[in-house]
């Protein structure tokens, strides 16, 4: 395994790594309450990539936050079940969740600059996580982290471990973020718009890295970009205004969308349909 992490395979052979059943999320309370996520259900098997695609306000990120127990203040799961490796995790206490999240779920966010503490070195953040979740000594954790940084193909990891987030390029920070997400051998990786802030060439490498390093794990990719989803996802779930409007194998969603909203998204992503017959022939 090139990634050099202790890979734990999912504990439920054959069963899905993640099962989300009738998930609803409520924001606020009383008559001002809104429902950013309503009755969303899906599963992700080991080695599978599920993409949740939708526009802003569709509830795709809230779904990811609910799974990672990162919902903001005043927002909570109001119905449904989240089952990770056969264990219901939606009903655990915050402390139990924290212990679980660092181990079993790895999170990757859009902007690694705002998700890393700017006054701490990249290494110290990862070393602390390895010490806490893998009960390693400081020295052993440091070795583990250097190995992990090498695994995501960061150059000169033995120096980079002492670098601050701002000293890395956007692509390098996202690699470090992926190293952190994978550090403790999670069974599920949740990536929320992991390449939106990156240039296309860097995006390509990060997507390839995510897909390769997810390997036998389950990968949930949240994206607004159907073209991005089409390059990495086995299955796609389309969300609109908090609800799942359609889900299925990627090829089916892209070639034969059943829901009108999916067709609209595809038409917009393909551009020419919008311009109709005046589409630009160019010189070619």
């Amino acid at each position, binding site marked *: 395994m090139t990634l050099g992490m202790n890979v734990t395979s999912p504990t439920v052979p054959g069963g899905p790594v993640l099962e989300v059943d009738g998930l609803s999320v409520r924001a606020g309370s009383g008559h001002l309450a809104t429902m950013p996520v309503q009755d969303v259900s899906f599963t992700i098997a080991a080695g599978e990539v599920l993409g949740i695609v939708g526009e802003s306000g569709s509830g795709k990120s809230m779904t990811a936050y609910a799974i990672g127990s990162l919902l903001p203040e005043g927002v909570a799961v109001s119905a449904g079940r989240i089952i990770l490796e056969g264990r219901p995790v939606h009903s655990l206490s915050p402390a139990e969740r924290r212990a679980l999240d660092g181990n079993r779920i790895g999170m990757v966010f859009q902007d690694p600059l705002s998700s890393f503490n700017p006054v701490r070195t990249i290494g110290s953040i990862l070393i602390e996580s390895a010490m806490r979740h893998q009960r390693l000594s400081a020295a052993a954790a440091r070795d583990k982290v250097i190995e992990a940084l090498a695994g995501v193909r960061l150059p000169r990891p033995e120096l980079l471990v002492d670098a601050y987030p701002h000293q890395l390029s956007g692509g390098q920070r996202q690699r470090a973020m992926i190293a952190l997400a994978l550090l403790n051998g999670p069974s599920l990786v949740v990536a929320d718009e992991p390449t939106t802030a990156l240039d296309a*060439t860097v995006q390509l490498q990060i997507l390839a890295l995510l897909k390769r390093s997810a390997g036998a794990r389950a990968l949930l990719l949240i994206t607004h970009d159907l073209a991005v989803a089409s390059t990495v996802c086995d299955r796609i779930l389309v969300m609109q205004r908090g609800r799942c409007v359609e889900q299925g194998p990627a090829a089916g969603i892209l070639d034969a969308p059943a829901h009108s909203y999916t067709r609209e998204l595809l038409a917009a992503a393909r551009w020419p349909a919008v311009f109709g017959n005046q589409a630009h022939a160019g*010189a070619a």
Partner: protein
Amino acid sequence: MTRDPLLEARGLSVTLRSGGRVVQAVRDCTLELHGGEVLALVGESGSGKTTFARAVAGIVPVASGELLFHSQDLATVRPAVRRSLRRRIQMVFQDPDASLNPMHRIGAILAEPLLVIGFGGHSAIRNRIRELLAMVRLDASLLDKRPRQLSGGEKQRIAIARALAMEPELLIADEPLSSLDVSTQATIAALFRDLQQRLHISLLFISHDLAAVRQLADRVAVMHAGEIVETGSCGAVLDTPAHPYTRLLLAAMPDLRRRVLDVRLVDAIDRLAPLPDQPRACHYRPKCIRRAEICVSSALLAPVGADRGHLARCHFREESPPMEHG
């Protein structure tokens, strides 16, 4: 085209200072934009495309070279003439939230430029604002609202309407679609196309999204490390790219039809032995899989084959791509 171009950059260079460092953000760029034309500037972050646009808009100073608008050098023309010329160049930014005052109502936001240019009395301004809203396909009922009550697409339409208030001949749009949802992007792109055709406005469209560029632009200029490395008609540049950097950008673009994650080219570039950047060498050489001895002296922008309008800054511009992808 025999007519003089609307905008002409001749050997334009822009130097930026950040901290103690001096960065050559735009180096020796020569580019023409004709009346009614849509020219897309593409490239990755740090390529100099935004700085080039900001120099044209007068936001950053030109270090050397000439910037001609209606054949008049914006640097040397009398200040009064410069002001009236500059007024005909307007800019739309990526994030409408940052460019619209959140405290003001839409009516006041649109009235401001009209008051500045002394457009006329109250009723003339009121009529003009309604006209501007109609141009961007917005309802007059929005006039009493504030920016936060509008959707992202509506806010970008207001930013466009405000730019149109000055009756520009050249509209510079810096990543105007990037902060918008996919479906909104397409409608705003269609609006730009519509304005350009109806009002005969020229558009300098800065984008990293080659799919949008393909639909919107007549011509494309690809920038890398502050230089224009390839330029030509949209079809020529995007369908028969001659510069290895253009080929890389096209290969890296996620494509709904190809649906593959082909990292061969990007990985091949990563495996190249590092090279120091030499002053006279091609700036793309350190990341170029085609590099050779001759690249220690940079090529000039030169025609690709028989197409006099298709130029590339590469010694090997006539060769077919060395690596198949897709």
